[in-house]
Structures are given as structure tokens and as C-alpha cells.
């Protein structure tokens, strides 16, 4: 019997995994540009560190809880620390590749939360929180929808993670923003993005990586992947155009931050629908998705809710609209397992709404409990003084835009006295010179 592993599928999934992994540093740029310069590294590090902490937690526990054989509510523990995860076929690709691909989803989902608590969360508390969250919240929810859990048995459609990734992360973000409270300067001073080009760079790289996120979710090099790929191109085009028109109508100017946001909203919205709707439907979906997020952002900024980088408006509303419209626009003739409401299956919309509510409720409750737990171990917030100083210096001992004047080299006492003096002097000069 020949191996069920397919070379083309494997090749595409190898590429997709790398594409999705790139989305996390891309998110770091997207978020990093939106904060003040004194918190730029901290904000970017919240994405970068997720690569390590969530990635490792995924290998040790998360993957098993999500995808090992288990109950309808969680996977079992049989694949803890990747036990039994080898190069045998999982579908038509090697099992380790499937595990790695899904791991990149866990990483970015946890990192998405960081946008809501930017510029004020203690870094150690953040690391503990997202690591636990990826195991306690992300892994079971992924199991419900993709690992054979109860939401998939109910028939919920979520092609690449509108509910599992975006609604899930956005609800956790909302809870975190409420529990952490607003930044001390929020609504008192103008808090402006310090590097909009970074945000545009991040949005561009996110779109690029999202082809792996959505088209890779077909788990093979097949027609579903091609459809998801095309829809991942088309939906954000419509969102971007509608957003631009809304911007023009409101301020008579087309904003760059708005464009970057629109791209993300379109990508989020098409995520659950990517391989299940026609390209024409994807365009309609992308266009519609602009509206709730656009007005959601405007409304949020007038409230006391300091969801600093608008995770809820972009990912929560975008993900919800996308998941509901999937229930409206899905078509069997385009590869969906069931039709949506507009194609003769009114039940699907209700199932979609139910899945959103279940995931939102679980994410809210579990995130709240985890944050309480983490707060007991390590306070969630930095001190007011450190918040004023900036989290780059106070949490990381580095600055994004270091000028270096007045920086005195600390030479280790342990250096042997025999060290040639000119070398030490040269190092001092070099260190000062390189940062001026």
C-alpha cells in the first residue's frame, strides 16, 4: 500500500506554516507602530515572545489538548510532549507538519490579545497569561471546531479560524482590557501612533502571511486552497475600498492607519469563509465587514474602554461578521460541507451564532479566571512611574530609539586586568559612536 502522504500537499503546507509564522512578527510591527515610541519594543516583544512561550506550550501540552483523540470538549493527553507525533500521515501530510502548522495559529491567536493591554502590562505577567491562555483557552476551543469537538459535530463552519482565532482572542482581549483598566494617560492626553509606516509594513506582511493562514487551512494543495487564496485576496480589497470611502466621507482624507486597519478587518472577516464561499460572496463579505468595525472603532474611542489597539473592533467585530456571513453565504457548490441561509439552509446561521456565543462565553470566563490567577502570582500592571517612563526601559532595559549620549559602558569587574587597555578603550569609543 502506498503512503497516503501527498507530495504537493506537503509542499504547500510547509510553505503555509512558514507564512503563518511570519504573521506574528508582522503583528508586532502592526501593533508596534501604533503605540508611543517609549513602548515600541515592549509591544513588539509581546508578539515575539509568544513565538517562544506559546510555541513551546503548544508542543508540550496544547497540541494534545486540541488534536489528540479525546471527548467533545477537549483532546486527550495521549500526545503530551508530542508523544506519537511522527512523520506518519495525518490526512495527506506528515503528522509533525500538521502539528507545526496548527502551532503557528496558537501563537498568533495569543499574541493578538496583546493589542488590548498595550503600554501598561507587566511583561512577566503577560508571558504567564498568554502561555496559560494558549493551553486553557485556545487548545480546547480549537478542539471544539477543528479537532472533532462538539461545535464541529453541530455543524459550525469555521474554515480558518474566524471564531477559534479572532472572536476567541478578541473576547479575551476585551476581558483583559477591562480588568487591567485604562492607561494612565488614556482620555487625558493624546496618545498617538509613533510609527505609522511600521503599521503599514505589518499590515502588508499580515496579508502576505494570511494566504498561508486561509489557503493553508485547506490542509492541501487543492481546489479549496485555491478558492481560499483568491478570497483572501478579494475580501480585503472590498474592505479597503469601503473603508476608504467611509474615511473620505467623515474626514475628507484617506488615512494610512485606517487603510492598515481595513486590510486586517477584511482578512479577519474572510477567515471563517475563505474556502466555503464564492469569490463574489467574498467581495460582498469584505465590503460589509468594513462597516461594524469602522463605526465600532469610532465608538470605542469615546468610551472608557482602553482596548488600546482595538482588538475588539478589528478582530471581535470582524470575526463575528465573518462567521455570521459564512452562515449566510456558504455554498456546497464551492466546497462547503453545507449551504448557508441564502442558499437554502436557514439553520446554518443559527449554528454560526451559537458557535460564536459558546466560544465568546468560554473565552470570557476562562480569561477572567486566568487573569485573576496571574494577578495573584505577579501584578498585572506596571507601576505608574514605570508606565510614565515607558515599558521599553522599565520592562526590557532597552530603548527602540536609543540615542546613546550619556551612556557609560559598564565594564565587568571580572575582566582580567591583563586585558589590553587599547582594546577596552576602543570598545568604549565604538559603543558610544555606534549609537550616536
Amino acid at each position: 500500500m502506498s503512503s497516503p502522504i501527498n507530495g504537493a500537499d506537503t509542499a504547500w503546507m510547509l510553505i503555509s506554516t512558514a507564512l503563518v509564522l511570519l504573521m506574528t512578527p508582522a503583528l508586532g510591527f502592526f501593533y508596534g507602530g501604533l503605540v508611543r515610541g517609549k513602548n515600541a519594543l515592549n509591544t513588539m516583544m509581546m508578539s515575539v515572545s509568544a513565538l517562544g512561550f506559546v510555541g513551546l506550550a503548544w508542543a508540550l501540552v496544547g497540541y494534545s489538548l486540541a488534536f489528540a483523540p479525546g471527548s467533545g470538549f477537549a483532546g486527550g493527553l495521549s500526545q503530551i510532549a508530542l508523544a506519537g507525533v511522527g512523520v506518519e500521515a495525518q490526512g495527506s501530510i506528515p503528522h509533525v507538519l500538521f502539528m507545526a502548522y496548527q502551532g503557528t495559529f496558537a501563537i498568533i491567536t495569543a499574541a493578538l490579545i496583546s493589542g488590548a493591554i498595550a503600554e501598561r502590562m507587566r511583561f512577566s505577567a503577560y508571558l504567564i497569561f498568554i502561555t496559560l491562555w494558549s493551553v486553557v483557552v485556545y487548545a480546547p476551543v480549537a478542539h471544539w471546531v477543528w479537532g472533532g469537538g462538539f461545535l464541529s459535530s453541530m455543524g459550525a463552519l469555521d474554515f480558518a479560524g474566524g471564531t477559534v482565532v479572532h472572536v476567541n482572542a478578541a473576547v479575551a482581549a476585551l476581558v483583559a482590557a477591562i480588568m487591567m483598566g485604562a492607561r494612565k494617560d488614556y482620555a487625558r492626553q493624546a496618545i498617538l501612533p509613533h510609527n505609522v509606516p511600521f503599521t503599514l509594513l505589518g499590515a502588508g506582511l499580515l496579508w502576505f502571511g494570511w494566504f498561508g493562514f486561509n489557503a493553508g487551512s485547506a490542509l492541501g494543495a487543492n481546489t479549496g486552497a485555491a478558492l481560499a487564496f483568491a478570497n483572501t485576496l478579494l475580501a480585503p480589497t472590498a474592505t479597503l475600498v469601503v473603508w476608504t470611502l467611509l474615511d473620505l466621507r467623515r474626514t475628507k482624507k484617506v488615512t494610512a492607519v485606517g487603510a492598515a486597519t481595513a486590510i486586517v478587518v477584511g482578512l479577519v472577516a474572510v477567515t471563517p469563509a475563505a474556502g466555503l464561499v464564492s469569490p463574489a460572496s467574498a467581495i460582498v463579505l469584505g465590503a460589509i465587514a468594513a462597516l461594524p468595525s469602522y463605526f465600532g472603532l469610532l465608538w470605542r474611542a469615546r468610551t472608557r474602554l482602553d482596548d488600546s489597539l482595538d482588538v475588539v473592533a478589528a478582530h471581535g467585530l470582524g470575526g463575528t461578521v465573518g462567521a455570521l456571513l459564512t452562515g449566510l453565504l456558504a455554498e456546497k457548490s464551492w466546497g462547503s460541507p453545507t449551504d448557508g441561509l441564502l442558499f437554502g439552509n436557514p439553520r446554518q446561521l443559527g449554528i454560526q451564532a451559537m458557535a460564536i456565543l459558546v466560544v465568546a462565553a468560554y473565552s470570557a470566563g476562562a480569561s477572567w479566571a486566568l487573569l485573576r490567577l496571574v494577578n495573584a502570582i505577579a501584578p498585572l500592571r506596571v507601576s505608574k512611574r514605570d508606565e510614565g517612563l515607558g515599558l521599553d526601559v522599565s520592562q526590557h532595559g532597552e530603548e527602540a530609539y536609543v540615542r546613546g549620549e550619556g551612556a557609560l559602558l559598564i565594564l565587568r569587574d571580572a575582566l582580567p586586568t591583563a586585558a589590553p587597555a587599547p582594546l577596552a578603550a576602543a570598545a568604549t569609543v565604538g559603543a558610544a559612536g555606534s549609537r550616536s
Partner: protein
Amino acid sequence: MKLVVAVVRPDKLGDVLEALFRAEVRGLTIGRIQGHGGETEHVETYRGTTVRMELSEKVRIEIGVSDHFVEPTVRAILSSARTGEVGDGKIFVLPVEKVYRIRTGEEDQSAVTPLFPAPEET
């Protein structure tokens, strides 16, 4: 006329500006500077290089005011820039020999008197 020069924490600038505008002090210049006022230095590490940052980011505010505005200006800055920790900054009040408003060529008192609301008589 006096020149009020204040060196404050960058993250207090918003509060200071608000207090100054409330005190109806308009017309000022600011610049981002670095300085050292005895506060604890912080240590930064870049790979193997560990450095002590002896200079902190500060903002310098310069305000030319007529004599009776000195007191409100200084009080506004004192109350808004203070955190109580070392590094809050300094205020210097300097005598000014001559002031010209470039646009009109006005001198001295009338040159530092804001146009809006109605100019106060000198």
C-alpha cells in the same frame, strides 16, 4: 519681562501644557532634550554591552512672559510637573533684555502679550 525656562519629564508635558493653557499662558517653545538632575540612572543591556544611561529624556519649555505673568506661569508648572520623585526637573526665571515680535516689529511688553483674547494694556 522674564523668560521662564522649565525642564520637565516628557510624560508630564501634557499635564504641564494643560495647566499653562488653563492659566492663560499662551505662546511657548518646547524642545526635547536630555539631562541629568541626580535621578537614578537606569541600566540597559544590548547583547554583551551593558550601559548606564546617565542622561534622561526631558522636555525644555521656554516662555517669555510679562512680569505679572511670572507667578501664575511658575505655579502652573510646579503643580502640574511634580511627581515627587527625583528627576521632576527645574524652573529657571531669567531677566530679558529685549523682545521683538518678528511679524510686527513690536517690542518688549507688547511683543510678549498674546493677541487673543484682547491684548492687555501695558
